């Protein structure tokens, strides 16, 4: 223990004694007390904290205003607060900690709009199971199950990956058949097997909601984006008797936004809209004649088509570890 520590503890002891004792007297009205080294006897001096009452003049009343506290150490609490605050303070200046008698100051208790994050994310891992379905695929219902994993290396930034499995969950809607029957137009479509993507997540928005002014829960909104692969193949609709297609891998980019609502400090529900974009090789609209009809080179279109699969994810997120240490700012 250093001399500074000893001085701090001594100050704490002194303040505890000084603060708790006279505290009740402060509340008394019209208290005529003189703490001067010598009683001045000046009329009108209800309380005199000066070393000599004469020096301060005869009209010094108790002054609890900011001006009255001028000269006091900025930010130095008094009374019970001072005791416990000082006890809790690991380090701090003590050289000028001289008992100058009772003081008051305005404590800066600024309330921040979002004062404290409900659930810290930094250095936690987030496991994200969800179901996904497409918003912009009228011909094929693209349903998938998805699993994602994020590592939060700051409180607002994460790196992660997700995996979507479509095969067996997709289904062709009636629309394609109806369009073919009514307009004789065949729309080339494709199917997905799976997609897996690396992505970054950034949380620019967070806040809290009150339900009926009774319950408060936290939420945040995020943007997510990255790159990955999509394994797809065309569904033969132009010449299904001859054409069959194998799965192949496409490079895909994704960009989305989402909202996460915390149910506990480690469990949340989330909804996300993410656009998976890639270049798709679609089935050729023309059927080659003769033996060329059986040549797979003639089965696909000459140039790939930009494909955008706007997907909604709904699911849960689990944060690991469940517990985290929150350090209160002082």
């Amino acid at each position, binding site marked *: *223990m250093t001399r500074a520590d000893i001085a701090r503890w001594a100050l704490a002891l002194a303040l505890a*004694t000084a603060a*708790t004792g006279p505290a009740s007297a402060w509340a008394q009205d019209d208290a005529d007390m003189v703490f001067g080294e010598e009683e001045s006897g000046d009329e009108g001096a209800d309380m005199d904290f000066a070393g000599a009452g004469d020096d301060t003049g005869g009209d010094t009343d108790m002054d609890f205003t900011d001006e009255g506290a001028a000269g006091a150490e900025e930010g130095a609490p008094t009374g019970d607060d001072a005791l416990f605050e000082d006890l809790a303070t690991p380090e701090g200046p003590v050289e000028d900690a001289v008992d100058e008698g009772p003081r008051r100051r305005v404590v800066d208790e600024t309330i921040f709009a979002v004062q404290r994050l409900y659930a810290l994310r930094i250095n936690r891992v987030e496991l994200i199971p969800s179901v996904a379905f497409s918003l912009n695929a009228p011909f094929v219902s693209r349903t998938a199950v998805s699993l994602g994993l994020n590592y939060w290396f700051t409180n607002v930034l994460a790196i992660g990956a997700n995996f979507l499995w479509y095969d067996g969950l997709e289904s062709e809607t009636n629309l394609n058949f109806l369009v073919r029957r009514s307009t004789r*137009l065949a729309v080339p479509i494709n199917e997905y097997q799976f997609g897996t993507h690396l992505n970054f997540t950034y949380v620019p928005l*967070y806040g809290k909601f*009150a*339900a009926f002014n009774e*319950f*408060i829960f936290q939420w945040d909104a995020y943007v997510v984006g990255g790159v990955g692969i999509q394994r797809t193949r065309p569904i033969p609709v132009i010449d299904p008797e001859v054409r069959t297609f194998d799965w192949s891998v496409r490079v895909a980019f994704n960009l989305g936004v989402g909202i996460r609502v915390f149910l506990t400090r480690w469990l949340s529900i989330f909804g996300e809209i993410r656009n998976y974009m890639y270049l798709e090789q679609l089935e050729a609209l023309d059927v080659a004649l003769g033996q060329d009809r059986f040549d797979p080179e003639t089965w696909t279109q000459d140039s790939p088509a930009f494909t955008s699969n706007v997907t909604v994810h709904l699911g849960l997120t689990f944060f690991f570890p469940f517990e985290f240490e929150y350090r209160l700012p002082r």
Partner: protein
Amino acid sequence: MTTLRLLLLAAACLSAIAVAPAPAAAQEIQITGPLAGQPAVRRMRQYRANRIQLLLPTVGYTLQDQYSRSLMTGLEANVHFTDYLGIGVFGALANFGANFRINTDLTAQVRQNGQTTRSNRLSMPSPDAVEGLTGGFPDQVARLQGLVSLQLVFAPLRGKLSLFQGAFVDTDFYIFAGPALGFVAERANLVGEDAEVCLTDPPPGEGIVSDDCLLTQAQRKNRVAFTGTFGLGLNLYFNDFIGMAIQYRAFPFAINPGGTDEAGAPRNGATVSQPDNQIDGADRRFYYHHMINLGLIITLPPQANLTQ
């Protein structure tokens, strides 16, 4: 020195216990602070209670349309009895009163690559325009005209959000539902003898579709569909009386989106509906109309109430 620290701590504690006016002092310290003893939300602005919320205007865009999209511009007014419950009306016109068309890519593809044969000439007399007779497939597509609804608004969640810890706005989340009227213009019915013009061959040398049949492609019929509407939204309040609404609204009702003959005949085991050589109500199918709306919120009176 550890012993000295313990002694000082013990002395401090004893001193505090001995001199403190009441044992409750320690407890008071623990709960001392701006939030001590306060309700969950204190002096909360009530943006809705006993106020009228106007959305002037709302601008929306329909989603997942098969053949035509709609830009919906309208108004919304909600009267709130409490901060979480109110009733209101919503009305919107599509494409500024159907003054323009927004076709999907599928409509463009049908117009460009669709083919009319004897078997589908009732469904689509012509994919492309024929001068003086028809504008082609886009002429027969059903198009939304407008939407009017009553709605019950329930706003259970009230909060605020922080943007980069630098900008803060109050917000609330709400859901709504109610009855609605959907206004739609569809291809006119073709039944009985009217349909025959598209089912019989024209005189030799005039192709497979008669002029009379081509004329039916652009014939329209306005219809009002009774339906319901529901949705959810997020309001952002910039001050007591101005804000912005982001809203999702659904209003499903059956239409014949392509103006084609899709149903009416017995299925006879088929998994899809069978055409009956008529264009009528049987060809309508469930259509999930939905859209995203943005709106400028003006709340009256301009001063929000505060809770205790």
